[in-house]
């Protein structure tokens, strides 16, 4: 038996080194290719923009994007700029849909390809009208930045940012109108996060929250505090309904924990009884 296993060992070692040594295809596929770990996708945009051939002012873009909310949600370069990120030679070909950097006035349309509702409300707002009339009003990147886009929150409305263009007074009224609803959205978001960590599937509630939040934030882009106040109740009702579902899930989790703990105590008790019983027998 020993000789048999030794022979098998030798055959395996010889076979693997022979194949690895003489078969080019084998080498290429198995000897050098990283495997068993995550496959690294080739991205021509990131490759060039991170290299020294790129102008220094453009080299930071991949880093900014990797810190962004878009990155966390799998929104890649070509989703906004078009082109073919898998083919370096054709990555910036117009035939492959490359649109490059938009002109200042075209930025809302650029972002609005995905953020449709927000674009509509923005164009109706003072910000949008100013841009359309003069080509110089604030657009999406004025408040949200271009590549380092963070998850939107009420903190974006602040004195430092708004006073770059006008006084803070009106923005403050707007922020106050949104305050309670935004806080509720944040609290529900945290609750959902905790519920997910407890092992509950929260996909449906997350979708409902996202839809409500998107509707509310699209409304904000009208920059009409009266309209926001008027429709706050409607959004609060939706948020309360989501919160009630989450709380019911937490109650359910508590019940499950108590039920299992009860069964655990029963089995511990039975274990003790059996142990004591076994001590009474003398063989």
């Amino acid at each position: 038996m020993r000789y048999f296993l030794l022979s098998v060992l030798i055959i395996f070692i010889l076979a693997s080194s022979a194949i690895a040594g003489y078969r080019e295809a084998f080498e290429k596929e198995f000897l050098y290719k990283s495997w068993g770990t995550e496959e690294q996708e080739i991205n021509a945009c990131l490759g060039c923009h991170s290299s020294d051939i790129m102008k220094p002012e453009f080299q930071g873009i991949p880093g900014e994007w990797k810190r962004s909310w878009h990155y966390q949600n799998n929104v890649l370069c070509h989703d906004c700029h078009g082109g073919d990120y898998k083919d370096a030679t054709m990555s910036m070909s117009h035939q492959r849909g490359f649109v490059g950097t938009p002109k200042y006035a075209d930025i809302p349309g650029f972002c609005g390809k995905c953020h449709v509702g927000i674009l509509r409300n923005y164009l109706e707002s003072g910000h949008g009208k100013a841009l359309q009339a003069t080509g110089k009003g604030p657009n999406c990147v004025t408040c949200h930045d271009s590549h380092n886009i963070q998850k939107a929150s009420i903190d974006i409305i602040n004195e430092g940012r708004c006073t770059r263009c006008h006084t803070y007074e009106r923005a403050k009224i707007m922020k106050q109108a949104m305050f309670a609803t935004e806080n509720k959205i944040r609290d529900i978001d945290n609750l959902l996060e905790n519920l997910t960590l407890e092992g509950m599937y929260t996909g449906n509630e997350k979708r409902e929250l996202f839809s409500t939040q998107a509707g509310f934030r699209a409304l904000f882009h009208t920059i009409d505090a009266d309209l926001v106040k008027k429709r706050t109740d409607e959004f609060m009702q939706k948020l309360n309904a989501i919160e009630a579902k989450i709380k019911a899930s937490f109650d359910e989790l508590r019940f499950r924990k108590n039920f299992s703990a009860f069964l655990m105590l029963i089995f511990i008790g039975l274990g003790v009884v059996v142990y004591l019983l076994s001590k009474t027998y003398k063989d």
Partner: protein
Amino acid sequence: MRQKIKDGWEERVGLKELIRTKLKEYKVPKGVNIFYTLGIVTLLAYMVQAVSGYFLLIYYIPHPDYAFKSIQDMMNIVPFGWFPRMIHIVVSNLMVVVIILHLVSIFVMLSYKKPRELTWVAGVCLLFITLIFCLSGYLLPWSQRSFWATTIVTNIPTAFPVIGEYIANVLRGGDNVSGITLSRFFALHIAFLPPIFLSIVGFHMFLVRRLGLSTPSFSKSAEGDADGPSFYPYFFLKQVFMIMVFFSVVFFIISFMPTLFIPEAANTPADPLKTPLHIKPEWYFLAPYQMLRIIPNKFFGISMQILLIAIFMLWPFLDTKEEKNILKRPLLIVMLIAALAIWVSLTIWGKRP
């Protein structure tokens, strides 16, 4: 009337006689400890898996469009649907722990020695079938974790020249993990593996009963001496005690660590277009997974693993020394500790991103 029925039953079935001869008069060796009960705990764990699995089958839909939703409905909508599922998940992991402990204790007590070599081989086979059960089972919820972990595992056979791609394609039913893979793994999990497992369990138990429990090396009795205590109640109560301990641990985990075996990726529906950043196999596959990652030649890595499995399985035939006390075999102690240390290290290493 009642007595008549009892007598008639006894006359035809002979249950009392069976209990008397097979349980009360059946002697176990002196010095058997609780480690001898791990076999029955494993068998019980398997039965729990079968029963909880039947309940899961009522609601589970083995189709990529419905599998994840059916599991989530079971967890969130079906009254007490979470209960069989949590038991199924926790017991599947503990079953692997118990089988490993069982094998380690058998190794330490050198109970695999002649004439029990085949009992050991059957036990190792049961460990591997349990692992295949786990592998086929965790694709079924069709979550991100199950999808990508299965993608990694079904990629492994491609290391073999010529037949590798064929084996991988048979497993997956195509070039990628898809609905066909789900159907195949589902059939494997509920129809093909159980009869194979039960047949080997039957063979294993037949050998245990036929050859008797091995006498511990530190016992004063000699092998084959029938001077120990009765199976019932002495050893039977030990078994029941360990079963209670096992269930206490199961409910402790469900109650206080419910997410221990359900990471976040297990709660995200499978998305074949989105590769997760860090996907890891289950803890019991981490050591072989890490071993394959650190060996740059894929074919060599897998050949080594097959060889190690062969040595592990056929070890009783390789260890021909007659000494049954491990304390008198320092080289074997060093080897066992080294093997366990390497396994634990690779598992911890494999867990890191």
